[in-house]
């Protein structure tokens, strides 16, 4: 079942969703970048290709309190002070970020389940949006992602005059039903003619994708080449000018490493976790020191994880979704595409 609403009524649709549950959508911040913000009356959906940071923040926030410990005498009390989560809706998620949720699910929802992640994931409804204007840094196609059919619980398309919605899951259909129940005139069911228009829009997007400079980039299955790639001499060249900052990691929708630390204020201990970056020199620091002594090993870790280790552990699925954020944000423009191309040369 597909629904439609005129573009000029988009605000009405957003308000209707927000009346059901908390709604987050990409809006432009003062620095001119798109960021997810909670919807308020008058909030305008960003026209930017994608948000600066990915949507993973909703399920795996950069910093998150886990538990508290309080000591009295010889007793230690463990306090799980998590509040009951409410349902929420993320609107305008691009296809790349939707796929990133699969990548993260494989890690956080595997046994032992990460209940902090699981709770947020369960309460979220993902409304995706097809990319109307992909950029030159996009290469989701490389990983078999369709930017024109973005997936999620409800997938959407925006054309010049009409906004289309297609619920894909029970959760998505339930939200659509609730919207219709609240306002019978909000959404119109699409007929065959309108569905053909969506098909046309999909084709238009596919034609744009074909023009992208990275359209022909192939992701090779390197699971059998683990040791060979690990030992490659290319890592030294590739990493030689890496600044060792965490920009790539922190804008990446699939980077999933975190560090757990205790903050002790003398009375209580607050245990929290925060995103970590394998690019940092104290990543996986142990009493005996760090296993990755130079930036070369740290750099190698990041790309081996995305292109070899993760696929090895998850049936060939790559831990890169081709969103292109690292291509845009790396201060020295060293990125996964250059790594993939270089590793390919190595083979030739």
């Amino acid at each position, binding site marked *: 079942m597909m629904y439609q609403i005129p573009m000029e009524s988009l605000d009405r649709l957003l308000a209707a969703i927000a009346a059901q549950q908390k709604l987050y959508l990409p809006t432009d911040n003062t620095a001119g970048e798109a960021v997810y913000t909670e919807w308020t009356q008058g909030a305008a959906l960003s026209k930017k290709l994608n948000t600066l940071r990915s949507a993973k923040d909703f399920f795996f926030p950069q910093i998150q309190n886990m538990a508290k410990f309080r000591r009295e005498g010889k007793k230690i009390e463990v306090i799980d002070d998590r509040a009951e989560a409410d349902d929420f809706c993320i609107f305008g998620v691009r296809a790349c970020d939707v796929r990133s949720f699969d990548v993260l699910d494989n890690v956080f929802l595997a046994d032992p389940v990460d209940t902090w992640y699981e709770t947020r994931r369960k309460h979220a409804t993902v409304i995706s949006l097809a990319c109307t204007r992909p950029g030159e840094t996009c290469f989701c196609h490389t990983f078999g992602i369709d930017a024109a059919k973005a997936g999620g619980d409800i997938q959407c398309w925006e054309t010049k005059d009409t906004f289309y919605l297609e619920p894909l899951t029970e959760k998505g259909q339930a939200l659509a039903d609730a919207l219709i129940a609240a306002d019978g005139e909000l959404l119109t069911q699409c007929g065959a003619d309108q569905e053909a228009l969506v098909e046309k829009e999909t084709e238009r997007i596919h034609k744009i994708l074909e023009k992208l400079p990275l359209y022909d980039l192939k992701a090779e299955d390197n699971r059998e080449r683990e040791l060979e790639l690990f030992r490659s001499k290319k890592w030294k060249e590739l990493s030689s000018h890496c600044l060792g900052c965490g920009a790539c990691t922190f804008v990446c929708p699939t980077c999933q490493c975190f560090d757990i630390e205790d903050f002790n204020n003398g009375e209580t201990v607050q245990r929290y976790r*925060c995103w970590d970056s394998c690019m940092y020199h104290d990543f996986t620091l142990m009493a005996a020191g760090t296993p990755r002594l130079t930036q070369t090993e740290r750099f190698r870790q990041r790309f081996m994880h995305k292109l070899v280790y993760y696929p090895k552990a998850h049936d060939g699925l790559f831990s890169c979704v081709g969103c292109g954020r690292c291509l845009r944000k790396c201060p020295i423009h060293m990125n996964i595409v250059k790594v993939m191309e270089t590793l390919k040369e190595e083979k030739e």
Partner: protein
Amino acid sequence: MQNELKWRGLELLKDGAVDRILGWRAGQFVYDITPDVFTDPEDLEKNFIYNEFCGANLSKYLIAESAKEGKVAVFLKPCDTYSFNQLCTEHRIHRENVYVIGIECYGKVSVDALRQRGIDGITGIRSEMGSLKIDTIYGEESVPAMEVYAERCRNCKSKKHVVFDELIGADGEVVDDCDRFDMVEKLEQMSAQERFEFWRGELSRCIRCNACRNVCPACSCEKCVFDNPKSGVLNKAAADNFEENMFHIIRAYHVAGRCTDCGECSRVCPEHIPLHLLNRKFIKDYNELYGDFVAGESVGQMSPVADFTTDRDAEPSVVQKGGDQ
């Protein structure tokens, strides 16, 4: 200009005058340029690039490069030469191992500035008579180059090379009428509350990626004071706004008197936080309190707050009052 640089680099490599060339390597697109070292003439000929996107300041890489055996030639734009001198002053660069080729610069373009104009799907960019012709998969765009220069270039402080062994192109002058302190003045005129809100707003976007620190030529400590797991506070945790504020403010204090205003911090910030304004405030204050001072202007000069002498300087009040409690 790219060819001139390339041929000179090839000459130096082939003559054996230098062992390595520190320059810029071409990427997938016209703008995704990586700083890199070239040792193979063939590689240099094929992959060296110099265009309006070569904004990266190569000076800091010389800390590592000049410590290696042999000689390295480096291409430095006027503003980069200030960082170079400053690092020499701090004994971080082995000057004798570096051959500095000063290169003329008209300003560098910020890709982000293009994107903020809604230009995306970039496949090529050409410079034509002060304007940029941008090919995109959605058609051609044209913008005046000046409007999409990086902020540091729009307010260029100097076209003069304060150090070079040879020059390609002409040497310029210090730009006396540059407007780089305008925004600082605007901030000074704000009420304390307004200014506080301005900075809280800007710094609240910080994601603690540390790109500003890691790219900064003045941040050359072997180990940063913030990278201390024993401190009980994780440097990578964007714990709350105030912590981020403190990180940037402390960093600005630490580089005060050594910061040459090269603008790399703002260039690399993924969140577009105008970090250079913190540094400029210090530079402006130094100029007003101690007389004009330009970090990196020459090798060996001391920052006004680092060269206290009892016979010349008045005894600071803190010292006088120290005993009285």
